[in-house]
């Protein structure tokens, strides 16, 4: 065979290989597209034990459909600006499900989707209203005077403020990717600041559209909304196993599923905790007419930050030790969403279970 024949054959083989790989990607894409992403709801069977406005308080059930009565209670408080099921995403990919399986009676708050009238909801409505009554409901149902609280992102801020106001009702507090130092640059607070959140009116608030809230998140990942970038990323990812692609699809669906936000709440958060205000770092702030002293947070506290968190920079979350000196700070590899529901989330779940199960010192 001549050299040119060899080259021709190599070219043909390469062409065939290219064709085979392209086809394999399309077949994998077909498989992913014909299976559900996420359920659009929590993965673990649950019963609704309390409702108020759009809020639903869910109690996870065991394999036989029964609540885990008699076990220590844990209340998950997700961020009210996104969908609650990030903590209960899929079977085998559920933070709340993992904690329940470890021997806890788990409750999850679903704040629901705010509508026009909810634009008047402020910090007091959430902290001293929805969260307080949810905790009260859990303590009443379980008969436990103090329960464990796990807050994620803005849900962590609500949990921290609640715990300072009602410390006797919180046995242990876990804060996940919760910013306390608003002066740390980067993150959603700074983006919102640059996007004009400062102009959000407290007295005459609007319901901030979900698309606008989402645009703040997208600004934190330049290129994520570029069509070319997304298609290119997806084509590259199609070499991954179908199971991994389904994970990506599930997470992408959740990230895109932002809900509208009450303008009054955002205005208040910005004025109190945003860049240049930063009242959490002074150790004293207010919720409604009540003064909140963070020194009252004396229960064991675990604060977890994510190394690659673009939404809540880890330095802003780790600063909790400056206002709650006994807080245990843990920084995990991963991003804002990944540490809770990504492939490496198991380390966070396990650490949380250990913290919740450890004897109170």
């Amino acid at each position: 065979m001549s050299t040119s024949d060899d080259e021709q054959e190599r070219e043909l083989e390469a062409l065939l290989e290219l064709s085979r790989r392209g086809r394999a990607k399309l077949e994998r894409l077909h498989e992913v597209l014909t299976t559900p992403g996420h359920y659009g709801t929590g993965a673990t069977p649950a019963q609704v034990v309390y409702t108020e406005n759009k809020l639903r308080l869910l109690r996870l059930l065991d394999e036989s459909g029964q609540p885990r009565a008699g076990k220590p209670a844990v209340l998950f408080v997700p961020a009210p600006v996104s969908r609650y099921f990030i903590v209960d995403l899929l079977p085998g990919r559920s933070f709340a499900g993992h904690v329940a399986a470890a021997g806890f009676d788990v409750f999850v708050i679903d704040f629901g989707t705010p509508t026009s009238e909810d634009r008047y909801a402020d910090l007091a409505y959430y902290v001293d209203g929805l969260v307080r009554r949810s905790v009260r409901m859990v303590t009443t149902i379980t008969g436990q005077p103090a329960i464990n609280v796990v807050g994620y992102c803005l849900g962590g801020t609500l949990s921290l403020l609640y715990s300072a106001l009602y410390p006797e009702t919180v046995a242990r507090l876990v804060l996940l990717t919760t910013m306390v130092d608003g002066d740390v640059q980067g993150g959603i607070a700074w983006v919102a600041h640059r996007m004009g959140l400062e102009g959000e009116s407290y007295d005459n608030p609007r319901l901030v559209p979900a698309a606008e809230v989402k645009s703040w998140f997208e600004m934190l990942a330049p290129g994520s909304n570029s069509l070319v970038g997304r298609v290119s990323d997806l084509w590259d990812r199609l070499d991954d196993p179908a199971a991994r692609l389904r994970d990506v699809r599930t997470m992408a669906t959740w990230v895109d599923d932002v809900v509208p936000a009450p303008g009054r709440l955002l205005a208040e958060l910005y004025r109190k905790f945003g860049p240049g205000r930063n009242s959490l770092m002074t150790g004293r702030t207010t919720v409604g007419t009540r003064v909140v002293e963070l020194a009252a947070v004396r229960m064991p506290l675990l604060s977890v930050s994510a190394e690659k968190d673009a939404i809540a920079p880890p330095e802003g979350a780790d600063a909790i030790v400056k206002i709650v000196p006994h807080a245990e700070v843990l920084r995990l590899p991963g991003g804002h969403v990944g540490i809770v529901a990504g492939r490496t989330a198991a380390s966070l779940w396990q650490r949380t279970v250990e913290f919740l199960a450890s004897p109170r010192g």
Partner: protein
Amino acid sequence: MTIDAKAAKDHSVVERWIEDQREWQKTAMTYLDSMVKNDDFLVHLGNAMRGSLLAGKPYPTASPAAAAAPAQEAPADDRLDRVLFALHEMQGQLNDLRLTLDELRNGGKGKPTATSRAKKATSSKATAKVRRRTTGARKAGKKRG
């Protein structure tokens, strides 16, 4: 390599090429089949062609620039929304009251008989009736935490 061996090898490449084309036809038919049988598949495919693996709903069309541009103003006449939100607040106060009553009934412990009733506490009529009573109950509830 002999002429026969070369022909056999070429034949093999041609055969594989033809086989590859058949596989492509199968892949194309699988896509066509899903498009015909599954209405949602086109939505999924459309999302994928935009580089997203969003499931079950169309790709959001609002661009960040468009979303962020003119801020949506609060409605001029907000009285209805103010009333609705006040009712939501009262619903919470009413739930506090019921929880307190339950605790008193059960000596401060036990299962809540108010759980199911609390869920029903959305009637504005019922809420209006207890409006005055809940003012005092709210303070009691806050003390209880």
